[in-house]
């Protein structure tokens, strides 16, 4: 269980994180969305015990990040938004070094290293020098490093930047797998499609404030209580629009030249069906009637103003 309560970080006049509260349970893959400078990295670094919060608390499995940072560090795997690699060592040496620092018993070390290399698809690079790896491989090595001590919470700061589409897809699989293993995974990003696919929880942060938090569909629903419907009629558009406008629950009707009517509708599915029925029974020839699927991107754009401090 990760519980964050009212976490704040102030840099002089600037409030980088402003009273952030949320809670995540094992298995949650949390997508932390925000534009540049929104406060994602600052939040993650506070959780990683690298930054002292100005106020507020966070506890992981009952351990407070400020009262017992050593215990917290044992439980988290932190992948920063930069690489942090030693270039003069071999891949396995790099992992062995961190396994040692995290006090992984010597007897298990090589087995664990083989496992994480397998998970991150780096097995064939086991004996390669770190500096000889491609950017994407280095990124995966960073992720492998976070896994050597089997942490309960993974803090991944923009893990997918710089990865090719295939590596992205694999990363997605890997993160899902980590979620299934019962870890809490926090993934920050500003690339929305990247997160939408595999997070079961999202939070949208802007200028340090968490604007929305919850399961993905709830966040989308909560902000998109009105449905967007497109109707394609072959008969007179204006007439159809007038008909729709008169119905209950219709908030907004716009017509386009090509015979399309855009409707913002605040009713349920029954009302939606009744609307279609009404159009047809009034003699309109309806060629298309579909609900526009709202996605995270819409929610994000709707919520945030794009203002950066």
């Amino acid at each position, binding site marked *: 269980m990760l519980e964050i309560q009212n976490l704040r970080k102030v840099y*002089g006049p600037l409030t980088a994180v402003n009273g952030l509260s949320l809670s995540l349970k094992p298995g949650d893959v949390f997508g932390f969305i925000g534009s540049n400078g929104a406060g994602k990295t600052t939040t993650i670094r506070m959780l*990683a015990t*690298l930054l002292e919060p100005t106020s507020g608390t966070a506890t992981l499995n009952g351990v407070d990040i400020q009262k017992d940072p050593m215990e917290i*560090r044992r439980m988290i795997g932190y992948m*920063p938004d930069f690489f942090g690699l030693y270039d*003069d*060592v071999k891949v396995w040496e790099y992992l062995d070094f961190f396994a040692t620092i995290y006090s992984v018993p010597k007897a298990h070390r090589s087995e664990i290293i083989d496992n994480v290399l397998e998970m991150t698809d780096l097995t064939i690079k086991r004996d390669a020098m770190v500096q000889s790896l491609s950017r994407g491989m280095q990124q995966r090595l960073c992720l492998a490093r976070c896994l050597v001590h089997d942490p309960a919470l993974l803090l991944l700061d923009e893990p997918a930047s710089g990865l090719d589409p295939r590596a992205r897809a694999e990363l997605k699989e890997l993160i899902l797998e980590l979620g299934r293993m019962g870890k809490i995974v926090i993934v920050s990003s500003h690339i929305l499609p990247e997160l939408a696919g595999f997070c079961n929880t999202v939070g949208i942060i802007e200028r340090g404030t968490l604007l929305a938090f919850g399961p993905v569909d709830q966040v989308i629903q909560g902000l998109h209580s009105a449905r967007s419907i497109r109707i394609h009629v072959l008969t007179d558009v204006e007439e159809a629009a007038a008909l729709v406008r008169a119905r209950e629950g219709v908030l907004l009707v716009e017509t386009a030249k090509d015979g399309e009517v855009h409707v913002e509708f605040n009713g349920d599915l029954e009302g939606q069906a009744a609307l279609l029925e009404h159009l047809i029974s009034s003699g309109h020839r309806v060629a298309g009637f579909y609900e526009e699927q709202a996605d995270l991107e819409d929610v994000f754009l709707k919520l945030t103003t794009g203002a950066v401090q």
Partner: protein
Amino acid sequence: MATLNSGKAAFLWRQLVSENPMSVEVGRFRRRFLEGTRSRNLNTTILVLALVAYASLMVVLSNMSGELSPNSLIFVQTGVFVLLAPTFMYSAIAGEREKRTWDLLLAAPVTHAQIAVGKFLAGLAGLGATLVLFILPTLFTSFTFDNERNYMVPDSGVPLAHGVSGTAAFANEEFISITFGIMLLAATLLFSARCRRSLMSLSVMLISLFAGLLAFPALITSFAYADAGNAFMDVASFFHPFLAIEKIEELHRASVPQGMAFGLIQPWGFGVLQGILYLALTAVFLVWACKTVNFADGEKKFMPGKRNA
């Protein structure tokens, strides 16, 4: 009280040395310097130079047995320490910052003291290896050196009686040399902790060495022939390892009054006292380095002062 202290000391020993996960640095250090990688040209060059010097020493030794004194070898050894200690340590912490691996260490379950001491132990191992290279020829010359032939009252053919026993002088000189090397390690580690760039820490260290070993004694010597000359020289010799080693050697060679006129410091003051002073400084530098290590955000300025937010 005594048991309390020894318990505490044992705890510190376990935490910082015997059970310090950061002592893995020693192995990393060995790999870096001995299994040389291409990227470490500077270090490799110095290592090669040291080996060449070692080989030529051995040649010289076998040719001039009886003429080469252990004292001159200890002199060379101290000189090598002066060159190697900064090379071993200058990038220990500043280099981690440059590679951005520093945050990863800070986010790992090791204390600042463990990090600093781990780095220091690695340097100590390097210094130990260098010492091993020197100790054999030095011991060798201490047996072959012909006191009778080399130390004689000028123009008389009468051997000098020795003021300080040969073994004591030898031990004292070695003690100064080794402790001075150790102190240089700690000093460089401190500079490395306080500098943002590793080259900066190397420069600061080299400038300090230049000032301490060359400029300061030169200044003192310019007073030395004035009235208070011997007192000045004594003070200079006390703080300067090379001058101190030389002084011990002089004391050892000459018991006759013409040899020395004592100023401020008595003969017994040379040797152990300096070594203890160097060790005390080592402790101070190490503790200072540990205290400096505690920042991830905002770098600390080189000199203590206001910490940037």
